[in-house]
């Protein structure tokens, strides 16, 4: 039996750039991002949508890229962790995670960055409870979430132009 060659071309905007890649019909977006586009910042912790390490924004909406078929990205816009810092300037979520020590091993961090950015894009002034429920889909085994939550609240404050909350 030979390797199937039924790969299809997919055109999408990835981190603001037009990209074309080949994908098997059954292949998930996470795999293609990592293996075809070499965007390995998107992590695969479970492949079942339970850990959130593969979180990306699809047309601005937070999704687990292990639950999205690569073909579904056709004509869509995908943002991964590699596209969050603009022109070398870190997003406040990234900066505050660094300042608060909101990461240890760091493997959940890309997903946390994407998820937190998605939250702050739509809710610039979340309560701690809202942050905790929004991030409930991003498993972190190292930090106990404390410093992550503080970092996200602090980033929200900075984005609002005020002082840290």
């Amino acid at each position, binding site marked *: 039996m030979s390797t199937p060659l039924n790969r299809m071309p997919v055109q999408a905007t990835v981190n603001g750039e037009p990209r074309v890649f080949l994908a098997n019909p059954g292949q998930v977006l996470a795999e293609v991002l990592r293996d075809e586009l070499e965007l390995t*910042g998107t992590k695969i912790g479970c492949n079942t949508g339970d850990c959130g390490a593969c979180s990306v924004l699809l047309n601005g909406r937070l999704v687990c890229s292990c639950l999205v078929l690569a073909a579904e990205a056709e004509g869509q816009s995908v943002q991964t962790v590699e596209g969050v*810092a603009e022109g070398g300037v870190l997003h406040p979520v990234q900066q505050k995670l660094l300042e608060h020590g909101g990461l240890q091993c760091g493997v959940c961090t890309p997903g946390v960055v994407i998820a937190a950015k998605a939250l702050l894009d739509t809710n610039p002034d979340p309560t701690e409870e809202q*942050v905790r429920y929004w991030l409930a889909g991003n*498993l972190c085994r190292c*930090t106990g*979430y404390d410093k992550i939550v503080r970092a996200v609240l602090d980033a929200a404050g900075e984005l609002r132009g005020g002082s840290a909350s």
Partner: protein
Amino acid sequence: MNAQQEFQFVGSRSIRPDGLDKVTGRARYGADLNMQGQIYGHIVRSPHAHALITHIDCSEALAMQGVLAVMTGADLPEPGNRVLGSGEGAIALRDLSPMVMSQGKVLFHSQPVAAVAATTPELAARAAAAVTVTYETLPVVTDMHQALTDGAPILHDDRFPDGQPKEPTNLAAHITAQVGEPDVAFEGADVVVERTYSVPMCHQGYIEPQACVARMDGAGQVDVWCCTQGHFTVRGYTAAVTGIDEGNIRVTPSEIGGGFGGKTTVYLEPVAIILSKKSGRPVKMVMDRGDVFRSTGPAPGAETRVKLGATRAGKLVAAEVDCLLDSGAYNGNPAGIPAFLATACYKLTDARSTGRSVYTNRPKIHAYRAPSMPQATLAFELVINELAAAIDMDPIEFRLLNAVEEGDITMMGSRYNRIGLRECLEAARDHPHYQSALETGTGRGVAAGYWINAGLQSSATLNVTGDGHVAVLTGSPDIGGSRASMALMAAEVLGIPLERIHPQVVATDAVGHCDVTGGSRTTLATGQAVIQAAEQLVAELCRRAATDWQVEPESVTWSGGAAHHEDKSMDFEALARRAGSMGGPLTVSSSLTSASAAPAFGVHLCDAEVDKETGRTTVTRYTAIQDAGKAIHPDYVEGQMQGGAVQGIGWALNEEYLYDDQGVLQNPGFLDYRIPVASDLPRIDTVIVEVANPLHPFGVRGVGEVPIVPPMAAVAQAVFNAANIRVMDLPLNPPKLAKALMSSETS
């Protein structure tokens, strides 16, 4: 807080040097590297939990186009009686090798029995399914109590824990320690409490599955890239499992996505190497999440009986501990910890403690943060609380009356040096959390915890560039921010700006041997190697300045990043720039077996409420207090405390391995094996106590493991107090608590 030394850099909250790569997605973990020409390995796993392998037929798989190699246990050497490592870290090859691939017999479901390598992952998976393995199934036992009954299926008919070749049993080890005369001493107790609590098997739950790429070239040289807590250990274990000379193997560590003890061994690496040897191609292997749960080493389930006696005045007079632990299919050596350490927080001159471990048809257990200590501590600390209540004494005051301090003798016969349990208890007692009134419907729990901590072998190399920067190279994988700590310690000795220090974790051939990042030892022992190397560098710089100035080296001092003699000084940058003409490149190395390990203690406070209808527990407030000796980087000390506390909360309330009667794990994924998520938790407050470790140049104690020791008892006590019930087996999940609440209402 009594760290005696004044520090310039140490103790500050610097931005970690690897942080930028980690928040931008550039950091490369185990599955993020690809080698040119690589193919993909896939493991064939046993569908049975206990069976003899009668035949393996790989011919159909090997005939598939694109399948380049197959292997079975026959490709690995017989383990024999070889033992790797020594002391606490010793492991018999016969307990290690079958976790990589079985030879003739499978003892747990999903145990590897063969592997294939093919040009795509999909093809490798299909080829694995085409391998035909014929089994003769055997009866299964997954419950450790059943495993000890007469007539239970025997996993190893060639192992005799007492050394006496008689009828084989499933008892893997039986260790007893005793001091004084506990049976006599119990007669002097006014109050005796005896309880038996059990804890389920659980998993470390690191988010990154095991992954590696390995390549053997035509000359037999092996390159491995993998995520591990110790690449020198990967090298040694892999050599032993495959029979390849250790010297022919180089291991480069990737960033590591969590380990907690679970990544201090090998599963995939030997397989990838053999497949590479057979195919002539690099082989990449990434474990599936389900296989991580089913086939890597979890933490042992345990049942612990604790009997304690005290006087009305609050003095502990005697203790008896009996801890039974599930070792899984092979010997994971969990029994010694409860036997020797269960009583470690308290002055007890009369105590007996027993640890026993049992073989069952589950994966061999492996280290998980202070291995076996939380299981024993749950029962011990709950009985301490019950004793305190029985004599109407505050549980922290009761502990203060009995807490070990400098000079006390442990069950192992060693003497405590300066330790900080008393300071932690006082900090807990005085904390606003403990002083606050309880909200209606909530309960409060307190528990203490101990961990021994390790020293072991570490090395560091410092290379200075011509413009005065320093690469700090170690062989200790950084899981929780240790590179930041290494940089701070090097800066402290050298007196140069932190921005000029570049800590890196490098391959096995680029720095001296380092044991695993485990045992809470990295900042302590590898830090000590960094400090020593930096001191050597300073000495060399002073010698060079002395030569230049034509003065005695002893008359040159080093401060503020410069050499000084009377009114002359020469700074680090100038010495680095002139290195070529002043004695050659500046490079120093230091290696040591650290004798600086010191025990650490923590005290945790938990408030919780229990929904009377659903049985769901909410932790409403949590405070972790711990003696760090000296917190080199407080953020990452607090992070260890918070992360360990939350793992303990998860173990107390939810986490549990569930097997069916055929030994198949029923919850091998994060949906059904539920670890705590952000919305389950309150903030985890921390108090770092600093009672300097007198054996360490900067006063460091290990911090990584203690935080998982107290939580289960603290949480359980809070639940018991909130709901006015007592449940003897964890986890305290909603169905179990709802049932307990219902029966307490009807009774």
